[in-house]
């Protein structure tokens, strides 16, 4: 009898949340639609299109009015629309091993059939490949360079096992100059360094705003979940350095601050706070979100979205161009496993996390190899449990729903038990 009002409240909150979500979603959807439309009609508008890796230095492209397109972002869209399996199968029939990164496989296949949710990406005029995120992008972009027969620029950011070496700094800094020269040659005009400075300022401001948005979830209850963050991430990745990004995140930050002030949580009954590690399982974000919410668990933070504001401390506001070298080299995936573990511990503390959900993503070796060690360190230093979910970010064939469901249930039992016994203490 007492359960009735509780259930009603639950449904009301759910409807409210969905409505809010939908309202926000519509805006992002519009923005991304315009963005892709502009990119696809670049030929008509006389602008150039560059394909660039998600960790690549986009600011010079924005300064040159080149439209940046992100095959990885497109990969996430392919995954979210559940079109990954077919495209991956197509790439396998082209001779690519099924063990390769599913972003790469989908994109390589997609380019030949113009598949995916938006009928394929616009042809690139140039390819910009920065290997700070992984070595796979080097090979992927080589494939596309052969396929599209367009200039390829490789921005080689040496791996920082235990710190940022002076030799690396010199090398990366020199490549920034080479990059500008490359763009000037490909676009047929000079870089406006004042404009680049302005773009740099906007980029830094955008990153700081994103950082502030993510930080709102340190509050309890969290005003948004990591699943929301996965969604709002698109702009800081694709259009970093534009005023659009500032506007969007300023609005979003206001909304979040407002929710915090009113004590509105993203999930109706936040009891357990979790941290997500690795790229999302794009075809299953909604399923995962509902599954965790059914346990009153909220993914309050994650290591993936925070990567796009993780190196602001290396950026010199008054010398954006020079400091780009360090900022782009010392990103989350380009540092040692022990340093990553340190950052995870910091996040555990900042967001008051009860447990970690790690996506052991077959497609991403730099992100996944080392998770076992990070898990051990977190369990040792903070005593909180870690859940491993073996899957893939785009290829659904690697996701076993019943297996994952069982693991989540078992993990939540442990989290509840531990939290319960803590409360008892």
């Amino acid at each position, binding site marked *: 009898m007492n359960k009735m009002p509780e259930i009603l409240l639950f449904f009301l909150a759910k409807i409210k949340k969905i409505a809010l979500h939908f309202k926000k979603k519509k805006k992002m959807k519009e923005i991304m639609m315009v963005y892709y439309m502009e990119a696809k009609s670049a030929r008509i508008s006389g602008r150039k299109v560059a394909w660039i890796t998600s960790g690549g230095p986009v600011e010079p492209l924005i300064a040159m009015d080149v439209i940046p397109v992100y095959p990885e972002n497109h990969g996430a869209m392919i995954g979210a629309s559940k079109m990954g399996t077919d495209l991956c199968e197509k790439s396998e029939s082209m001779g690519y091993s099924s063990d390769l990164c599913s972003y790469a496989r989908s994109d390589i296949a997609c380019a030949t059939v113009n598949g995916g949710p938006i009928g394929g990406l616009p042809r690139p005029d140039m390819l910009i490949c920065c290997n700070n995120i992984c070595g796979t992008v080097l090979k992927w972009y080589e494939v596309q360079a052969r396929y599209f027969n367009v200039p390829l620029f490789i921005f080689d950011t040496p791996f920082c096992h235990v710190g940022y070496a002076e030799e690396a700094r010199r090398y990366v800094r020199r490549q920034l100059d080479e990059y500008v020269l490359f763009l000037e040659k490909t676009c047929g005009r000079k870089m406006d360094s004042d404009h680049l400075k302005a773009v740099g300022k906007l980029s830094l401001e955008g990153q700081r705003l994103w950082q502030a948005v993510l930080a709102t979830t340190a509050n309890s209850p969290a005003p948004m979940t990591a699943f929301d963050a996965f969604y709002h991430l698109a702009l800081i990745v694709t259009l970093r350095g534009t005023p659009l990004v500032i506007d969007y995140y300023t609005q979003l930050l206001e909304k979040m601050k407002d929710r915090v002030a009113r004590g509105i949580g993203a999930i109706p009954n936040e009891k357990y706070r979790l941290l997500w590690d690795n790229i999302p399982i794009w075809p299953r974000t909604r399923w995962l979100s509902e599954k965790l919410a059914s346990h009153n668990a909220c993914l309050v933070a994650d290591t993936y979205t925070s990567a796009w504001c993780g190196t602001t401390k290396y950026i010199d506001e008054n010398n954006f161009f020079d400091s780009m070298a360090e900022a782009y080299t010392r990103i989350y995936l380009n540092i040692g496993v022990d340093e990553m573990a340190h950052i995870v511990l910091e996040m555990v503390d900042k967001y008051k996390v009860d447990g970690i959900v790690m996506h052991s993503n077959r497609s991403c070796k730099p992100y996944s190899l080392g998770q076992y060690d990070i898990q051990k360190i977190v369990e040792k230093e903070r005593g909180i449990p870690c859940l491993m979910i073996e899957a893939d970010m785009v290829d659904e*064939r690697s996701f*076993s729903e019943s297996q994952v469901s069982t693991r989540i249930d078992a993990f939540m039992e442990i989290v509840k038990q531990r939290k319960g016994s803590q409360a008892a203490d």
Partner: protein
Amino acid sequence: MITAGIDIGSITTKAAVMAEGKIRGTRVIFTGYNAEQAGTNVYEELLKELGIEKSDVRRVVSTGYGRNSVKFMDKAMTEIICHGVGAHYLNPRVRSVIDIGGQDSKAIVLDEKGKVKNFAMNDKCAAGTGRFLEVMARALEVDLDGFGALSLRASDPSRISSLCTVFAESEVISLISKGEKRENIIAGIHESIAARVAAMANRLRIAPLVVMTGGVAKNIGVVKAIERKIGMAVEVSEYAQVNGAIGAAFLATSLK
């Protein structure tokens, strides 16, 4: 001239006898645990059935995983070569062979002479082999022989996405408990095995005329599913299961 071909597979052992370039007879038995014995048995049984003496047989070629254990063979050749020769003998217009056996699957591309131009094998993983179907038949508690006919009645094939046989089995069990119709599940299973095999075939850029050989070719559901996945018609000869042995017997005719 009378020649014979022996194909020792992991599940079944086949024999074929040819005389004056025509098939005289074929036979299939279970291999069991003694490959050498199986090779001897199937050969002796077939000769007895045909009323031929061993001394009348000019040459014997063996094939299959147990090919080197056949003591009375004159030459051992791989099953890929023999399947190619066999398919070409049965129909010289054949350019591609898809073979799904009990524990492996292969795709073979032939030239106009029946010689192997390219091939691909899956012998590491149960998915895409007859074993996959056996596991599913057990899970569904349906006789494997009825799979083909049942799948043709499917109204809406289920989607089974797992790459791994064990996970696919748990997907099937989950579908059963959700009340999904047997016919639909079986059609989904056929889609799954066809996808795996077709992926291998598509990598080779197969071309018509495509034939299927091996025991699984008897399953009309799988044949049709493969046709859809490769976008080409697939023919199945009455000799599909003994195709390798026929190829071996034919190869034996050109041995000196």
